[in-house]
């Protein structure tokens, strides 16, 4: 079954290549030159873990977009679940496969990015904790949306991703908002503050366990909500 699931996502996997190229082009850490962006030079291979985590987040959205909603909307689920399998096991396997692929894509991006940019791999392995957590957060988000919404889950997840990539957009949008509205929106959106704290901690050689736990809680809570909803849903 894994082979068929892999075959199903081959075009989506291929679409990660241009996304990775774009992220490579946009990541200043990959373009260090004498006298150019000394801050990025100083951050070293851990500095690029933010870009690697963006790839992991986008990979989860791309690989899982519509993974439940499309089956329901188009009626594919009717034949699938006539066979002895549960929706939880079937979609859980697809989610786990996407997670492993996203993490593999992050590792590949970290290694190839360094090789292309610097001609050598300087490390930055501990920075992989950031994409590992980000993939759980965005994987939880897309899983919840895909179970909850009849369609449009991919676009909504992309919309939720935008503040991660362009935090200034969010700041601009919330600059005029009332404090309660601002707090509610920040609570609903992926935990950008936690991501930032984890990244900062990595640069200083420490693990911010509080931030890690908060981000994981956000992702797993959404995953659990999606899983509960999945078991309660009818399959029209």
């Amino acid at each position, binding site marked *: *079954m894994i082979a*068929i699931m892999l*075959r*199903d996502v081959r075009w989506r996997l291929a679409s990660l290549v241009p996304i990775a190229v774009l992220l490579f082009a946009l990541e200043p850490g990959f373009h260090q030159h004498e006298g150019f962006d000394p801050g990025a030079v100083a951050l070293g291979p851990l500095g690029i873990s933010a870009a690697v985590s963006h790839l992991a987040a986008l990979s989860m959205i791309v690989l899982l977009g519509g993974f439940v909603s499309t089956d329901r909307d*188009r*009626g*594919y689920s*009717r*034949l*699938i*679940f*006539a*066979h*002895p*399998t*549960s929706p939880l096991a*079937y979609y859980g396997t697809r989610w786990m496969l996407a997670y492993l692929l996203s993490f593999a894509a992050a590792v590949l991006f970290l290694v190839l990015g360094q090789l292309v940019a610097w001609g050598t791999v300087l490390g930055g392995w501990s920075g992989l904790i950031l994409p590992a957590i980000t993939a759980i957060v965005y994987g939880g988000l897309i899983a919840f949306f895909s179970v909850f919404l009849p369609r449009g889950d991919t676009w909504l997840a992309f919309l939720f991703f935008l503040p991660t990539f362009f935090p200034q957009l969010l700041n601009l949008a919330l600059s005029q908002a009332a404090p309660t509205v601002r707090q509610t929106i920040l609570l609903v959106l992926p935990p950008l503050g936690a991501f930032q704290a984890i990244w900062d901690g990595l640069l200083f050689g420490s693990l911010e366990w509080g931030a890690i736990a908060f981000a994981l809680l956000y992702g797993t809570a959404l995953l659990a909500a999606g899983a509960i909803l999945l078991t309660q849903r*009818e*399959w*029209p």
Partner: protein
Amino acid sequence: MIELRGVTKSYRRQGLLPAGKQVRALDGLTLEIETGAAVGIVGLNGAGKSTLLGILLGYLRPSSGTVLVGGLPPRSYAQRHGVAYVPERVAIPRRWTVRSALRAYAMLGDIGDDTWEQADACLDRLGLTPLADRSVAALSKGNLQRLAIAQALLGDRRLMVLDEPTDGLDPVWIAELRPIIADWLTAHPGRTLVLASHNLSEVERLATRVLLLHNGRLAGEVTPSGRNSLEELFLERVAQLEEPRA
């Protein structure tokens, strides 16, 4: 095998009906289908046939009442044992080929070591081997229906649920379908068939007991007994049921 007690299913309809108005697809349905039976379900459009089958598979939950299939709630039964099912509207991922679709269903079916051999045998039984590498998106309605029937034959299921199985099939394959279903049914004494269709002649050929659904209620049996065809019995009974309305 199947036991329904006072099953009601209501839908909250949108669109032309006022918001929030409920439509009863099934209305206090009580029904027993014994193991080994071949039961046909007939009725007018909107009688509740597809809703009943959806409930038997656990895809829909009754608004009230209880349903047991093989002593289990329907979804638990399907998850544990699987159901040989052909839906009214066949939907198979368009990116799959005929062979990969059948192999995917076979793998989901957890049917043992000879998964691929079984899948290929089912392809062959439904005459789909020449189309094995064709994309599902390129199949005609009839071929798609045959693929759905092929996947229903996978594994050693005890319950077969068919919703308009002859839909889209040409006369040759309609005739071919009869021995396929008959063979499936007789291959094991514990197998049960539930068939819903507007094709009354096929229901008459395949089912040993025919139930009439009308406005979500069981309106009696219309099992042909030799003198009258199912069509005659059906039309007569429906006319009686519709009479008070006229």
